[in-house]
């Protein structure tokens, strides 16, 4: 029996998500990623003496949308100051929410395992600036000097705290992935982990199988991708198991995940933990959303991933395969479900459009500008042609790539330009006629039932057409001719 068999893992996650408001949480500076350092700043987000915060109403609305989508109660809430010194925090306190957060007591259901993960709270807070430590360590300790970019200072965040309901790195990944798609669907965030709009801290503990009391936990910081999340949790759980198994005790502490080394290391112990001296932020009034406001947010939320997923599952059939469930997840993450429903109207099988959307289109639009609009009509035109056999799967994929790259492109003209026009059934049929005339003995054998000779004709057709023939149409033509002859 391995060590892992003797221990249970408990994971709780704190997910920070940046809200996609036009301006920051407490001032009018632009909320954008990638601007020249320290250009999106003003007296307020630089914390200059005498400046005061004013709450961005849109940020509060987004937080309430998130809470509603996570089945939370929306409450009267109070901003607090969290006091600690750090150079990228211009006021040396962070404005956040403490014992009265905007959203409490929610849950989400994981799509693959069906497990329910409880949400303890979701609260609003401001982001800090971004430090870059110059020197070999890459951390502030031992750095030659540090650079600070305050563009991120004051960007609105919602921190979503889960209950310690997950039992593995994989389950944590599934939670974050589902959470991310719900967050994106609310319109409150773009969910881009690679740009830091979604950041995860993980609380991990282990206990022996057969015991109830949770072990001492460690909090892992700096998990910036789903891959890091799984690796870090797996590593940390194993580390704790080894300590406990060796008769030792896990020390409660904050640990840093080093992606390159693939391991966690101590950042600060419980004794070194900050006393944040929280107290109500005197420069801001409490938030007191009315019942009407809360109801309006509920009403305007639209269909969320769980509901959309159920609709797609129904299209695919009774018991979708694991890969189909994953495809459905991707389609929802990329907001492509309308395309699949539109395809059904035009006779495109759900499984075909699901596969193309999840495996091709999603990949193609990854990394494109946020404002990119998917050319649904044109993509649908391609899928229709493929379902009618006018394009081979290979051709269809090539055309989809070009259509995504150039939204203005004319699909028919593109197919002509690529030479895929040769694939029309009439042309294939006359091509087959030519080949039959050239190969009478093979044709006789085919007619007498040697089906494997279809491959010979497809090969010939490919050769004659310079690779542009449609194998499916060639086979269809052969079959049609034989049926006609044999009545």
């Amino acid at each position, binding site marked *: 029996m391995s060590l892992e068999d003797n221990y249970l893992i408990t994971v709780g996650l704190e997910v920070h998500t940046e809200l996609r408001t036009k301006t920051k949480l407490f001032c009018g500076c632009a909320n954008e990623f990638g601007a020249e350092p320290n250009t999106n700043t003003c*007296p307020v987000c*630089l*914390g*200059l*003496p*005498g*400046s*005061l*915060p*004013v*709450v961005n109403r849109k940020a509060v609305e987004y937080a309430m949308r998130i809470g509603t989508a996570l089945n939370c109660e929306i409450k009267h809430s109070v901003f607090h*100051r969290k*006091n600690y*010194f750090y*150079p990228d925090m*211009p*006021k*040396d*306190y962070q404005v956040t929410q403490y014992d009265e957060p905007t959203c409490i007591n929610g849950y989400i259901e994981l799509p693959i395992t069906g497990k329910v993960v409880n949400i303890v709270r979701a609260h609003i807070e401001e982001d800090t600036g971004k430090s870059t430590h110059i020197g070999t360590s890459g951390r*502030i*300790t031992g750095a030659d000097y*540090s650079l*600070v970019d305050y563009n991120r200072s004051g960007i609105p965040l919602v921190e979503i705290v889960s209950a310690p309901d997950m039992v593995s790195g994989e389950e944590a990944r599934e939670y974050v992935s589902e959470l991310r798609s719900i967050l994106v669907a609310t319109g409150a965030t773009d969910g881009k982990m690679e740009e830091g709009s979604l950041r995860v801290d993980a609380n991990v503990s282990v206990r022996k199988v057969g015991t109830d009391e949770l072990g001492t936990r460690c909090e892992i910081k700096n998990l910036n991708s789903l891959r890091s999340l799984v690796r870090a949790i797996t590593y940390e759980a194993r580390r704790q198991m080894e300590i406990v198994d060796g008769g030792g005790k896990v020390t409660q502490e904050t640990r840093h995940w080093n992606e390159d080394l693939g391991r966690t290391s101590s950042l600060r112990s419980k004794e070194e933990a900050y*006393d944040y*001296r*929280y*107290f109500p932020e*005197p*420069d*801001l*009034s409490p938030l007191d959303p009315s019942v009407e406001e809360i109801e309006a947010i509920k009403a305007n939320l639209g269909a969320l991933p769980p509901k959309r997923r159920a609709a797609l599952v129904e299209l695919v059939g009774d018991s979708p395969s694991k890969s189909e469930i994953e495809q459905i997840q991707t389609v929802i993450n990329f907001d492509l479900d309308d395309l699949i429903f539109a395809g059904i109207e035009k006779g495109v099988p759900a499984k075909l459009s699901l596969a193309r959307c999840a495996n091709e289109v999603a990949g193609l639009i990854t990394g494109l500008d946020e404002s990119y609009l998917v050319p649904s009509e044109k993509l649908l035109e391609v899928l229709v042609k493929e379902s009618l056999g006018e394009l081979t799967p290979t051709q269809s994929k090539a055309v989809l790539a070009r259509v995504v790259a150039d939204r203005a492109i004319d699909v028919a003209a593109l197919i002509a330009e690529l030479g895929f026009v040769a694939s029309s059934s009439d042309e294939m049929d006359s091509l087959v006629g030519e080949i039959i005339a050239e190969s009478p003995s093979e044709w006789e054998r085919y007619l007498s039932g040697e089906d494997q000779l279809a491959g010979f004709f497809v090969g010939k057709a490919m050769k004659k057409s310079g690779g542009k023939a449609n194998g499916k149409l060639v086979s269809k033509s052969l079959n049609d001719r034989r049926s006609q002859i044999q009545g």
Partner: protein
Amino acid sequence: MSDAQFVEMSAVDIAAGVRSGAFSAVEVVTAHLKQIESYDHEVKAFVTQMSDRALEAARAVDEKRARGEELGALAGVPVALKDNMAYRGVETTCSSKILRGWIPPYTATVVERLEAAGAIAIGKTNLDEFAMGSSTENSAFFPTRNPIDLNRVPGGSSGGSAASVAARFAPIAIGSDTGGSIRQPASLCGVVGVKPTYGLVSRYGLIAFASSLDQIGPFARSVEDSSLVLDVISGHDERDSTSLSGRSYDHQASDGGIEGLRVGVITEMMDGLSDSVNKALAQAIESLRSMGALVDEVSVPAAKFGLTAYYLIAPAEASSNLARFDGVRYGLRVEGKDMNETYELTRGQGFGPEVKRRIMLGTYALSAGYYDALYGKAQKVRTLIANDFDAAYSNYDVLISATSPTVAFEFNAKSDPLSMYMSDVCTIPSNLAGHPAMSVPFAGDEDGLPIGIQVLAPSFGESVMFKVASALEAAAKYRAVPQWASTEK
């Protein structure tokens, strides 16, 4: 019109004269700049003088008039600004070494409103470092002297602003009041000082000491002038979330007599007054009665806990507000071997002893395990104080007390912090309650040192407060005169 006449003139008269063209803003400003040149080396009210800018602004007002444009309510009126208000392009220090050299890239809302009304900023005045103190001796640069008696303190923390009005450097000045920092120096310098209702005046651009208590207000040599300035600076500001929408103060509303008004004398503030102050309070009561007011003693029981609650809440907020002075972005920076040492050296050398004391007090009050017993309890006391005041106001239109238990004291007379804190025992409760209160000069002691009477009112009760203050002003037989003017006589 002579320079001597200009420096004695009220803001109301200056604005009227400039608007009518009886004299120019440049003449007014020049006269005040000369007064500063003659006497500020003795008073030391200013940390930074703004003479060139002031003359330029005065010329702009005169040109505006020449073009036939409408002039504001404070056209050509010089104003001194406490040096904890941001002014774009002008060094703003809070009288602290840690901010020396800091030039704000923006201007406080109050200052913008004053300038929009035609007022002319002539300088930034000295204060107890970060507004923490009651004598202006805690300025990191130099103490300011009381113009009425140069051997005594002007009070604080807005000592420079109070002194500049008393010294005729400006007819009006702006201060901030967290626990009495406008009213107490007004009392000690023989001028009018007003702390408005919390939220009536925008705090945007005021460098915070204790955010939930700080309020900006005017100094003047007459109640009418102070009322006019409050009219100009009050009103909602979208940049300050605690400024109340739909609320501003109307200068015109404070006219009228006090016959039949119910005035309560706060019992808890009658203890510990010096003889001369006690006598002045008794005279004030008599005067109000003789003008037809109904004056009684009234108890505001929780007020006696004000000082204790204040010295938990104000330092707690200050410990957080002053965290940003860390040497990373602006002001003083003393390099250490690493980040923590840089913080320690910068703050260790940049802050004076009183500021450090309060940061430590406040940090302690907010610490895990102490919060409920200290900060939490102080907040409850605060609610009790507001409730007790409200109960008193159900029977009284205004309340009165002495502003300060004593007249202006000599330098270094209160080296023990606690005895200094006692200077604000009568003024602190209004800040905790968020209510308006003002000091009006009413009497002089046997040495001619000024004594102010405090008039307190419920939230947004400024009109009735000014009415009663005007009555006291009319009844007063005393007028504070600078030491050099009285000795010349």
